[in-house]
């Protein structure tokens, strides 16, 4: 499935798609197969049981969270490439939660400080009780399906939200 030969995930790999940053740097990627319906249903059960605020959007394993955010749900991209994509696509960090708009990205880090997950913001409502923001996001959880959820409400294995980014242009 994953590329086996020279330059796996690269331009010549039939298991990948041509994908590049806006500066034309190629982004290695792999197209993953579908997991069995039984495996995906178990994954959904694990994600939703006891979490009424989470909603399933799509149950597929063909892309990962980064492929969802940067490649229109067509492929899987290793998290190590996220800093490169953010830099070359000129994403800017959003300092204030209140400034987050639908379409902006949430980047999660694991305990080692590496990128572990990416989510796309879909709404941002002020939280009148705490004075903070209720940010809802959409994200693919590994190969376990795509969910709508609060940006902080993810399984521990996906890490913790650390930064918000946007590629919005205001010129």
């Amino acid at each position: 499935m994953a590329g086996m030969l020279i330059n796996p995930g690269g331009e010549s790999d039939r298991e990948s798609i041509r994908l590049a940053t806006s500066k034309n740097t190629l982004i290695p990627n792999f197209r993953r197969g579908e997991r069995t319906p039984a495996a995906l249903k178990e994954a959904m059960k694990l994600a939703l049981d006891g979490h009424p605020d989470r909603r399933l959007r799509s149950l597929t394993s063909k892309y990962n969270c980064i492929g969802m955010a940067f490649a229109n749900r067509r492929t899987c991209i290793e998290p190590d490439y996220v800093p490169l994509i953010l830099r070359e696509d000129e994403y800017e960090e959003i300092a204030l939660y209140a400034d987050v708009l639908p379409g902006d990205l949430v980047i999660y880090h694991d305990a080692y400080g590496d990128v572990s997950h990416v989510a796309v913001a879909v709404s941002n409502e002020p939280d009148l009780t705490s004075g903070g923001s209720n940010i809802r996001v959409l994200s693919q959880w590994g190969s376990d399906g795509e969910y709508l959820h609060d940006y902080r409400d993810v399984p521990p294995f996906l890490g913790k939200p650390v930064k918000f980014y946007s590629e919005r242009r205001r010129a």
Partner: protein
Amino acid sequence: MELQEVMQKIEDHRFSAEVNLAAGSKAFSRILQNHEMFRALLELAKEPGAVETIAKRVIDLSGRQVDPQYENVFDAALSAYLTALRDTAKPELIAEASSAAAAARNCWWTPGLSRELLVRALATGVVAQTAATGMKIPQEHFTKIWSDMVNGLASSSAQRNQKTQILFHLGLSNKKAATQSLMPNNFGNPSPNRRQREKHRDLRAIHSKSGVRRGARRLVHA
């Protein structure tokens, strides 16, 4: 918990769902190392005869028939077993299990791990023994190992000395192998050039039908 019980849980859909939360291979490895069932497996693997049982299970699961339209349901389990063997078993057993796992169909995490273990077996000379016992290692793994050598990823003199052995397995002369290394992903593809030509022809047809290029020219003239 007994070894059989732990192995049963590792082969369960729930374990697969938990470790498949990983977005990438590094995260997968970290989730695996922190998973309680994997830790239990690692502890039990230290008991006498346990690594042989795990290796046997790898060989058994790797040979199972899989539905070609879906991923192998034992992918996560195979990866967990190989990782446990990597940390606890002798090189010969690791090579035997990883070569069997390399042949498992439709896996996502297992090929990278089994390849890594085969490279290690190659570097330590275990591959020579596996060859002597007639162990079957998929051609693409040898090809990748060889390409790693070409690219200097495995460039120690001991590894370079294994090159002849790999070429022997592939049934390739030096010249032919060198030519193929310059044409990535051509192994096992009877006519890659024809396929590429057809792809480009199809793209040209799409462009001409949609008038993309003509439209662009008109825009320039206007």
